[in-house]
């Protein structure tokens, strides 16, 4: 299990900026924010640098979920806007690739919110499969809680999701894949 090494900064100003950045939600899944997803990696106040109003410049680092994730530009813009509204005029958002994002970093509260929203959260820890036969853990239906579900397609509406159907209540639902 990979531990999320991103931490909310201790220093007051940076912590304030972190909290603001953490209000930004995933544009596709508006109930979960980028801190709960593990996308927000760090927020730092840039020493000795200020915007036109004398507020400190802020460095924000985020990491993409999937290599081709098209939501990252929207998230970047949203972070700049959110911090801008709270008085930070000079916000630098950077994308990092390492350490690679993993669903292991999703918080329990994030997973609970996904489920409430109707998306089954990732089950189990990320691990590379070495053989040709893939084994999966059961996925619980977010509507009726049954474990009697089946995968319709491995690839869903976004890179991170697969499409499942519940054999009990017959409702289709999205599953957030383990990565």
């Amino acid at each position: 299990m990979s531990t999320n090494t991103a931490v909310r900064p201790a220093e007051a100003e940076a912590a304030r900026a972190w909290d603001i950045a953490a209000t930004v939600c995933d544009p596709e899944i508006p109930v979960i924010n980028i801190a709960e997803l593990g996308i927000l990696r760090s927020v730092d106040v840039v020493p000795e640098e200020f915007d036109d109003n004398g507020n400190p410049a802020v460095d924000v680092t985020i990491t993409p979920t999937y290599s081709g994730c098209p939501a990252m530009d929207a998230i970047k813009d949203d972070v700049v806007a959110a911090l801008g509204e709270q008085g930070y005029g000079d916000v630098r958002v950077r994308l990092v690739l390492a350490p690679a994002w993993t669903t292991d970093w999703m918080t329990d509260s994030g997973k609970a919110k996904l489920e409430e929203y109707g998306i089954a959260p990732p089950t189990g820890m990320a691990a590379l499969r070495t053989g040709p036969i893939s084994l999966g853990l059961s996925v619980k239906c977010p509507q009726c809680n049954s474990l009697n579900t089946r995968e319709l397609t491995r690839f869903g509406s976004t890179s991170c999701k697969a499409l499942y159907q519940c054999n009990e209540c017959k409702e289709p639902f999205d599953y957030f894949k383990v990565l």
Partner: protein
Amino acid sequence: MSGESATRITPGNALRPEDVAERVAGGIKVGEDVGEYALRLGDDALILAQRLGWWISRAPELEEDVALGNIALDLLGHARSFLTYAGSAWGKSEDDLAYWRGEAEFRSCFLVEQPNGDFGKTIARQLVFSIFQHELYSRLIDSADETIAAISAKALKEVDYHRDHAIQWTIRLGDGTEESKLRIQAGLDSVWPYVAELFQDDELIERLDGVAARPSEMREPFDALVAQVLDEAGLELPDVQPAMTGGRSGKHSEHLGYILAEMQVIAREHPGATW
């Protein structure tokens, strides 16, 4: 040289592929050899992404429209990272490289240029390429070049899903109807001449020992997994001569020109345009 390209590490061990262009202005850039290698990795991904994109709205079922589209999107993400990194060797952006190079400057392999054919042929190509890429990125996560290692660490997790998709489809098609078996076998026979090129070593690989993954070393595990899958699917390993290739030195099949024409035409007709 490769050493100087990988030394900028931000606090917390994170790397920044996006500020590579800034580094060029600061006088630091990736060496030409590493740049050339990153071009090979990026071009393979870019051309295959372009080929797979064609399937959207044409796949045999809606789920495959989405699956092949998603695989293409993952590949495009890899291409963007590798090409941005490669571009720093020559002061070029990812867009400069994607839209403004001609055929002779691309370093993609013959396999990814091949026409999609029917679904069977596309799956056959996916089987070969995703197993190859899985071996490739499994090794590149230990590359001495930290940027290549970081990009590969992400790519490996996604290619794991691509490989799984290809293997499952190969088994379903091979162990399906007579028609599906004929088509997947024909698909394998048609892409097999382009397998050898993926596993060829050359002087660049020798110079980049420790940074690049040695292609010839990957052939055995590739063959072993392919044999396992084909056996389960009830298919035959094709027995064909390798084709004349040369993608790594800019010599391409007749297909690349058409692929680039379609991919580059809008950018070339409206240079400098933005959304």
